[in-house]
């Protein structure tokens, strides 16, 4: 019994090692003084300093944040409307719509990328921030809807009916009853949409214009020109940002349960 327990623990430790070792080494070497060698030569912050001076990186960071905030806001608003609408009303073609909402979850991302590219070019929309935002909203919405609907399912409809009986109109009921009830789900889905947007590579690759490179795309082009500690530093910052958002959303979710 103890032997198998030991084996199980070792196996678990090995898998965690496999998951974390590459990331850990990346982070460690972002503080390494040497530019060329993978051997540790001393601690430094200079790669973070040079990032701060890199105009391309700063521009990409700006684009990334604009797109992430805008697409999160839009996908949460549309997501709430769709989720509440589907929860409250029965209409023709509801089950078809239901199935369609799942399509982006199983569609290869590259296909979504090229189809949006083809679409934008036919519509003569120039590639840039606007196309990035539209694309990000398209792939975030299904996730937002899934999260909000999960919350709505556990919620007693009679509360809404009671509010209406007491004289609240539809909008008032929505604002004072429905919205506060689904609020945790809204926050969770917003954080989800935000991280998906910041981390997306494939779809952004196709719909970003020459002047609207996002941070992951910036990393992609930097890696192709060679591996430098600057990329390690930039990757470390992005890891930290994602980690921050993930922990925040976990804490918020724990608070409500």
């Amino acid at each position, binding site marked *: 019994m103890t032997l198998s327990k030991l084996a199980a623990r070792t*196996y*678990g430790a090995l*898998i*965690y090692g*496999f*998951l*974390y*070792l*590459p*990331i850990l*080494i*990346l982070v460690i*070497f972002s503080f390494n003084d040497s530019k*060329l*060698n*993978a*051997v540790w030569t001393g601690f430094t912050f200079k790669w973070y300093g040079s990032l701060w001076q890199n105009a391309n990186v700063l521009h990409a960071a700006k684009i990334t944040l604009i797109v992430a905030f805008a697409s999160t806001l839009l996908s949460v608003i549309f997501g709430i409307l*769709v989720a509440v609408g589907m929860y409250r009303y029965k209409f023709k073609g509801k089950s078809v719509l239901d199935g*369609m909402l*799942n399509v982006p*979850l*199983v*569609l*290869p*991302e*590259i*296909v*979504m990328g*090229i*189809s*949006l*590219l*083809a*679409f934008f070019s036919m519509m003569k929309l120039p590639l840039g921030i606007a196309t990035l935002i*539209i*694309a990000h*909203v*398209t792939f975030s*919405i299904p996730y937002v809807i899934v999260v909000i609907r999960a919350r709505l399912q556990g919620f007693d409809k009679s509360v809404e009916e009671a509010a209406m009986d007491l004289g609240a109109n539809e909008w008032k009921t929505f604002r004072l009853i429905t919205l506060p009830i689904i609020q945790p789900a809204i926050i969770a889905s917003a954080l989800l949409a935000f*991280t998906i947007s910041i*981390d997306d*590579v*494939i779809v952004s*690759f*196709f719909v970003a214009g020459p002047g609207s490179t996002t941070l*992951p795309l910036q*990393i*992609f082009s930097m*890696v192709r020109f060679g*591996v430098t500690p600057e*990329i*390690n530093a930039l*990757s470390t910052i*992005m*890891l930290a940002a*994602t*980690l921050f*958002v*993930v922990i925040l959303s*976990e804490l918020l979710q724990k608070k409500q349960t």
Partner: protein
Amino acid sequence: MLVFLFVPLVLVLFVSFMSRGVYGGIDYTFTLDNYKRFFDSLYFMMFLESILVAFITTFACVIFGYPFAYLIARSPVKYRTILMFLVIIPFWTNSLIRTYSWIVLLRTEGVINSLFLHYHWISQPLNLLYNNGAVLIGLIYTLFPFMVLPLYASIEKLDISLLEAASDLGAKGWQTFIKVTLPLTMPGVVAGSILVFIPTMGLFFIPDLLGGAKTMMIGNLIKNQFLTARDWPFGSALSIILIVATMLMIAGYFKFSGGKKEDLELI
């Protein structure tokens, strides 16, 4: 949102039947050449190879992921959340960054080679990067959490009393696993496999960065048709083939495993 999802898809279907213009644009004359070109040429082999790579990746993720998910799901409740959280972190981290971290490890001047040379375990740097093995490691590494999450969800839900009943009735550990545990957790296996299989075909940057020029998967081919060769009709045809193949495979998997559509909601 539906407009931005389905109109573009229909458009791609439409473009896939057009011809390529002289300067790389789209010539609006109907043709089946794009599909013919795919089926009687090297591209078809490349497509089969991509599917093979996707299968190997999925299989490796199941084999390594199942015991791992089982371990977490059966660990004491107070550790479970934290152990699972440790799996979620890589799940949410940028896949490109995680791919890049393997370059740091594997390249000629990379961490592994430097260490080995330093301790004189090897006299020349090993060629670890730019081969199919590196691509496979990158794919498995990137997609592993996508397998573990649904597996964990379905194993955790499993009622232990069923396993006890099986052993009371005289089943050995192995028999219990094959006859009870595995069938009951099949929804997790299906969901995980789909979540791993589909992205494998599209993650073009992993073969690009870890495979060098040697490895080409269907994702890279599609990307090149759109951005380098500017042959949109052919690229569109490839995408349609990819969609059809994925849908067929999902349908086949559901049929084979007896899973239901609701299983996907585990995600």
